[in-house]
C-alpha cells in the first residue's frame, strides 16, 4: 500500500508519520553522537549497528573512556588552565574516583578524600581516604594552587573557587589601579564591598572561616582562622563556622542541582540549555535529585528524544 492509497483511506496522519520516521541513518547518527559525546571516540561496531543506541547508555556510563573524558571536562571547567603539577588538578583525579566507584556527585566536594602528590617512586597523584577530607578542597596541592595573594593571608581565591566549583558562581574581579589599597580595609570601599562584604556570597566573610595562608608556594603553611572571626553569616542567612559548613550549605541548595544539570548540558551539547529546552533540564534536575549521581543527570538528558534528533 503506497501513500496515495493511504490518502484514499483518509489515513493521512499515519502516512506522514511514516514518512517522517523513515530515516535509515538515524540510529547510526545517534550512535555517533552518543559515542563522541560520552567517550570522545568513534562508535564501536556494536553501537553503530544497534537499532536503539540509547539503550547502550548505561554501558557508556561505565566505560573508562567516559571516566577520563568527563574528568577532563570537569577539570577544564573548574580551572582556567591545566596545572603543571598534576596533583593540583585535584578535581580531575577525584572525579575519576567518584565515577569509577559510582559515588554521589556531592562526594566530589564533601566526601572523605584527599588528593596527594605521587609517592616517592613516581606515578600518578594518589586519591586517599581521609576522614577529615572535604572532597578535594582540603588537599594541600589544591589549597596551594588557590591560596591567593591576599596580604593578610585570607584565602579569598579559595572561597571563590569553592563556590564556583560547587554551584557555578561566577564573579568578575575588578582591575585595580596601581597603589590602590587592596587590604581588607581597602576592600570595604563601595566599588569592592559589593563582592567582598555586602553580597550573600561575600568573599571576605567566607574567607574569615577558612585557614589562613602563611608564606607562599612550597613554603606555604595554613594556620587556623582567628576564633574571634567565627562564625560568619553568609548565603542569605546561613551561619558557617568552617569550610565544611560552607560546602554543606552550597550542596543542600537548589543551585547545586542546577549546576549539575548545567554541567550535563555543557558536556553533552557543548552549550548550555536553551529556554525552549527547560523541560529537559527540569527532568534532569529531578533525576539528579532522586539519584545523586552525575550519571543520572547525564542519562536523563540523553534519554529525551531530542538528544538524537
Amino acid at each position, binding site marked *: 500500500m503506497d501513500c496515495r492509497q493511504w490518502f484514499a483511506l483518509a489515513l493521512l496522519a499515519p502516512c506522514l508519520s511514516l514518512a517522517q520516521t523513515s530515516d*535509515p*541513518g538515524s540510529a547510526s547518527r545517534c550512535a555517533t553522537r552518543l559515542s563522541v559525546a560520552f567517550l570522545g571516540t*568513534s562508535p564501536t561496531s556494536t553501537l553503530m549497528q544497534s537499532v536503539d543506541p540509547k539503550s547502550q547508555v548505561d554501558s557508556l556510563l561505565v566505560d573508562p573512556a567516559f571516566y577520563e573524558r568527563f574528568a577532563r*571536562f570537569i577539570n577544564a571547567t573548574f580551572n582556567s588552565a591545566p596545572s603543571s603539577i598534576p596533583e593540583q588538578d585535584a578535581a580531575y583525579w577525584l572525579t575519576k574516583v567518584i565515577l569509577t566507584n559510582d559515588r554521589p556527585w556531592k562526594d566530589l566536594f564533601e566526601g572523605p578524600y584527599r588528593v596527594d602528590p605521587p609517592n616517592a617512586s613516581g606515578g600518578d597523584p594518589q586519591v586517599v581516604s581521609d576522614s577529615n577530607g572535604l572532597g578535594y578542597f582540603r588537599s594541600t596541592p589544591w589549597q596551594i594552587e588557590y591560596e591567593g595573594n591576599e596580604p593578610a593571608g585570607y584565602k579569598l581565591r579559595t572561597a571563590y573557587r569553592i563556590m564556583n566549583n560547587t554551584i557555578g558562581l561566577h564573579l568578575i574581579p575588578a582591575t585595580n589601579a596601581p597603589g590602590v589599597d587592596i587590604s581588607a580595609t581597602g576592600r570595604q570601599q563601595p566599588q569592592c564591598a559589593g563582592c567582598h562584604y555586602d553580597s550573600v556570597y561575600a568573599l571576605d566573610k567566607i574567607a574569615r572561616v577558612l585557614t589562613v595562608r602563611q608564606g607562599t608556594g612550597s613554603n606555604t603553611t595554613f594556620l587556623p582562622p582567628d576564633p574571634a572571626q567565627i562564625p560568619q553569616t553568609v548565603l*542569605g542567612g546561613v551561619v558557617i563556622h568552617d569550610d565544611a559548613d560552607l560546602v554543606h550549605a552550597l550542596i543542600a541548595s537548589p543551585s547545586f542541582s*542546577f549546576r549539575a544539570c548545567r554541567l550535563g548540558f555543557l558536556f553533552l551539547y557543548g552549550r548550555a540549555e*536553551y529556554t525552549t529546552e527547560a523541560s529537559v533540564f527540569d527532568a534532569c534536575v529531578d533525576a539528579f535529585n532522586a539519584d545523586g549521581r552525575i550519571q543520572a543527570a547525564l542519562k536523563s538528558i540523553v534519554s529525551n528524544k531530542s538528544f538524537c534528533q
Partner: protein
Amino acid sequence: MRTRIAAVALAILLGGAGCDGMIQGADNNPTRTAKKAASKAALTPPGLDPVVAPTERTYLGFDGVDLAASRVVAPAGTDRDRIKPYSALMGDYPRILGNAPGLLDTMAATFADPGPRWYQETKANAVSVYSAYRIAFEGCLTLTGSGATYAAAPTAASATAACTAWQTAFWSRVPATGEVSTCANFATQGTTTETNPRRQWAYTCAAVATAGQFLTF
C-alpha cells in the same frame, strides 16, 4: 494542582464574560494565546519535536536571582553540530574509508587535541579543515586505488552512484538530491585538471569526507 484547576476554571469563566487578563499564568485572551502558540511553534524547526515549552519552574540562587535568567532564547534542538574531536576522528576515518590515513597520526596538534587531564571543545579553523581534507584525500586515494569503478574518469552516472554511496556511508543519512548533484558535478567538472581517474575519484571522496556532515556529530 488544585490551584491550577481552579485558575483554569476561573479563566474559562472570565473568558466567557469577555474579560481580558492573566490569572495565575493562565491566559484567557484568545488573540494573545494564538500569538504565544505561533511564537512557540516558530521556535521549533521543522523535523524537530517540540520538546520544549518553557516551564514555569524557577531556580533561585542564594541571592534570589533566577539561575536560568541567562538562558538563550533559541529554537530547541538547534546549534547541535559540534566539531568531532581528534580522538573521534582517529576512529572515524578508518571506519568510513576502510583504511587509516598515515597523516592522521601526526595531526594531534593541528586538531588541538588537549594535553593530559584537559578538555576543550573542538573548534574548526582554516588549518584544521584543510588538514582534514588532506587526511581524507590520503585515505580516499587508498580507497580508490583499486576497483574497476575508479579506473575510469567519473561520468554523470558513475559519479551520481559513487556520491550517493559515499554520502550515505560517510554522513549516515540519505543525501538530498541537490547534495548528490553538487558532488557529481564536482566529480565530473571540478576534477578535470587531474588526469589520473583514481585521483579524480579521490578528490571527490575527500570532499564528501570533509563536509560538515562528517566532521560534526
